[in-house]
């Protein structure tokens, strides 16, 4: 009984978090952001059913997000037009079923093989659907996209979802349900066999399972939840356009899952929150934000392949075993150098961005870390590159200390767990 209660605790905490968040972050921009986070959490988790759980690297997952969103928005308009007794909370299910239908269709083609073949087909299908949006203008709405007015649907127990707060709670409710459902799926025979397919598809065949059927089912589920996310996005923004199903959106979901960590269930949730936050805040501060995303992705692939959650887990393990004191000095030593290199890199990127992309239209004068500088003069560049070189050499010089500290910690932990 108490074990049951214990396993329910994280869910109660999550529900509570979802409920109180808009009470604390109640501004209009914060509400828009948290709503989008909810959508992206579902989307990123659905993606990880493929990547993390089943070992399928898709480059076209936004197809199911986008098609779910488009079908949802057309459904909303049809409902408004014919005055059907359908209210907003049902619409995500429509989006999900649309995602599922397209997932089953495209999945039949793409899940025959795993590995590179699967990835290439997902890329091809993504391009196919993207380019068809230029042809099927009545469905995809061309450049402007398709719009709707969610408040015109039948009210749901008096709620018309006119305010962003109502939309937030709708998204939060669906998000909670989807997270729970996707978590539950990982704990089923099907979910476990997906892991087995990821590990060793050949052996799966010799314990009675068809890897292809497993991949197809996983693909259908992933497409369903992506469709739900797309529909929630459509409800929230009241507009869908072809960008939502394009390669940029597909890369974004890969980035979210990867930055958060594909090796744990919580990873993509954390990734979705971080990336959505950065996407909104960074795009206000700099228009080179996509470049930063690219760098972040490369950095994660090279230095933190288990993502933020993997990194945290690794350190939590050390802290729990009381070995953090061995790591802290090494980290304290490297941190200033790392920060210096970071500041230098950011300055260089911003200067380059100003000088190369914006100087013609907006002039070369700019503000950088609170200072007025001119990107067409030499000094800011010298300082920026100098800081970067100084920081980077510091990191290079001091990094072995971190390696040593880790070697020491691992040796200690091993001795203790072996005893």
């Amino acid at each position: 009984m108490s074990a049951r209660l214990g396993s329910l605790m994280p869910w109660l905490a999550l529900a509570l978090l979802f409920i109180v968040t808009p009470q604390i972050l109640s501004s209009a921009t914060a509400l828009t952001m948290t709503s989008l986070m909810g959508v992206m959490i579902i989307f990123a988790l659905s993606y990880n059913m493929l990547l993390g759980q089943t070992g399928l690297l898709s480059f076209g997952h936004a197809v199911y997000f986008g098609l779910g969103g488009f079908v949802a928005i057309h459904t909303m308009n049809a409902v408004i037009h014919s005055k059907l007794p359908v209210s907003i909370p049902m619409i995500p299910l429509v989006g999900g079923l649309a995602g599922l239908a397209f997932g089953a269709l495209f999945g039949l083609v793409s899940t025959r093989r795993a590995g590179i073949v699967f990835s290439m087909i997902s890329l091809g299908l993504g391009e196919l659907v993207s380019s068809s949006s230029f042809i099927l203008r009545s469905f995809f709405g061309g450049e402007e996209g398709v719009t709707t007015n969610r408040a015109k649907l039948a009210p749901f127990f008096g709620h018309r979802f006119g305010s962003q707060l109502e939309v937030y709670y709708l998204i939060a409710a669906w998000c909670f349900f989807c997270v729970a459902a996707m978590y539950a799926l990982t704990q089923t025979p099907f979910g476990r066999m997906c892991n087995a397919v990821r590990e060793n598809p050949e052996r799966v065949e010799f314990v009675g399972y068809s890897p292809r059927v497993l991949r197809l089912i996983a693909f259908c589920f992933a497409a369903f939840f992506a469709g739900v996310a797309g529909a929630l996005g459509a409800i929230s923004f009241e507009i869908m356009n072809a960008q939502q199903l394009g390669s940029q959106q597909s890369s974004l979901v890969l980035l979210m899952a990867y930055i958060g960590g594909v090796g744990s269930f919580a990873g993509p949730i954390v990734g979705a929150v971080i990336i959505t936050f950065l996407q909104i805040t960074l795009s206000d501060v700099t228009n080179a934000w996509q470049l930063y995303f690219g760098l972040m992705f490369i950095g994660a692939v090279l230095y933190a392949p288990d993502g933020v959650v993997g990194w945290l887990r690794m350190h939590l393990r050390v802290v729990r075993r009381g070995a953090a004191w061995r790591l802290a000095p090494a980290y304290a030593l490297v941190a200033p150098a790392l920060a210096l290199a970071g500041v230098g890199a950011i300055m260089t990127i911003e200067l380059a961005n100003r000088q190369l992309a914006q100087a013609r239209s907006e002039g070369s004068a700019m503000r950088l870390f609170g200072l007025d500088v001119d990107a067409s003069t030499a000094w800011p560049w010298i300082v920026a590159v100098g800081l970067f070189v100084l920081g980077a050499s510091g990191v290079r010089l001091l990094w072995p200390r971190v390696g040593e500290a880790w070697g020491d910690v691992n040796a200690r932990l091993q001795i203790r767990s072996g005893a």
Partner: protein
Amino acid sequence: MTAALSIIELRKSFGPVQIIRGVSLDIAEGERHAIIGPNGAGKSTLFNLVSGRLAPSSGEVRLRGEPISGLPPFQINRRGLSRSFQITNIFPNLSVEENLRCAVLWSLGYKYVFWKSIYRLRDVRERVEWLMERIGLTARRDTQAGVLSYAEQRALEIGVTIGGSAEVILLDEPTAGMNNSESEQAVALIRKVSEGKTLVMVEHDMGVVFNLADRISVLVYGQIIASDTPERIRENAAVREAYLGQAQH
């Protein structure tokens, strides 16, 4: 009575080279059958053909009278034939317990079930506990399969193979690369787990073979040159020349 496993005029070519050159063999229900032969004779290839990993060029395989050649491995497995691999073939990043769970799910009827929690399936749990006990890995249940010792991985390989309670079991060099005491343990394990089943096993260690097998077939260059009881095989001049004599050098 129909044989548990019949192989009829089986042939396999890779390009122009015929590796399995007309193998015919009947293995009776409950028999422990060893296949011996020099390296490269085609023993693993024969297992690959029988278990569906490869499709034969010609000939037929029957499982309890039912033709199975050309079927994919999972179909053959569902009909009651399971195999192990010469090169350990498990789920490296899953724990010992999860490896075994994956091995038993289909046979207990859970198939692609996605509406039941895996931790509430009593029959699965009991079967996995029983298997872990049998292969002596209960203490290592939470260890990732990939970091087990070689002998432990070989034991897990056997555990995964027998997990689905198949009636016909093929083991490809289960004791290869083990030291004497490990090999003895493995033999004891194989004896235990093959009780009441039909066992076909490729093995190099003659001690193991003569100790365990009811019958032995000798495969040389893709053909069976003798198939008989251990005593007769030991006396067979052709076998001595082709294989046993060689092994003594």
